[in-house]
């Protein structure tokens, strides 16, 4: 399973790197849905082989520690579930 697009209000490029087993990732996804923001998300733990390697390379550029959740909003990187920072990056205070 690669990147999944979720329709919603356009806030630019919004990508969530997540793990399917992680509750902070789930909270981040729930927040994005609640805010109704269009975004892509990907469960890195459900990928393998070349796809996983590609995603890891991509994530490393934003977050060298490769931790989850990592949310990238138009180039701004938010590591961990930080509600206020996520809202302000999305411009929905």
């Amino acid at each position, binding site marked *: 399973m690669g990147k999944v697009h979720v329709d919603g209000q356009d806030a630019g490029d919004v990508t969530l790197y997540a*793990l*399917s*087993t*992680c*509750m*902070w*990732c*789930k909270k981040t996804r729930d927040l994005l849905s609640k805010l109704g923001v269009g975004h892509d998300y990907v469960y*890195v*733990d459900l990928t393998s082989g070349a796809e996983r390697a590609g995603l890891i390379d991509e994530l490393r550029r934003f977050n060298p*520690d*490769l*931790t*989850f959740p990592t949310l990238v909003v138009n180039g701004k990187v938010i590591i*961990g*579930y*930080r509600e206020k920072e996520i809202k302000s990056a999305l411009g929905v205070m």
Partner: protein
Amino acid sequence: MVSDDDVERLYRKLKEDAESAGYHLNPDRSFVMGIVRGLLTNKERFGYMACPCRLPSGVREEDLDIICPCDYRDQDLTEYGACYCALYVSERVAKGLDELRPVPERRGSKPSPQKQTGEAKITGLSKPVWRCRVCGYLCARDEPPEVCPICKASRERFERFM
């Protein structure tokens, strides 16, 4: 697939173990049930309960430090009031006196606790002393116990301390 019954069973066991050893599970039950499901999912995938909030390598020896409870739990509880996933919280957080806050990843950033403890040079002991890398429990016996009596970590998580 992990069944609801399995999740409930492990939740009860973890809660009982935690309370009997002076630890506390996060009082947010639905959040904790999600973490417990993640632990069981990882057990199905890898054969061991790797931390649900970290990306395991899938090789047990490489993931030993992040088998739940991980080597970082106690330090994070002391410093941030919660473990990285917030499965375990401090007494103050459990009682609602402190708020839960994000815990930065400790793994990899500093030398792991595995490598921090050098073997002390004390001679003349009648038995070797073993240290649990998860909770710090010490015991003097020929071999470490099969399971840590405090935090239930397995024998392979012990190191020679003296």
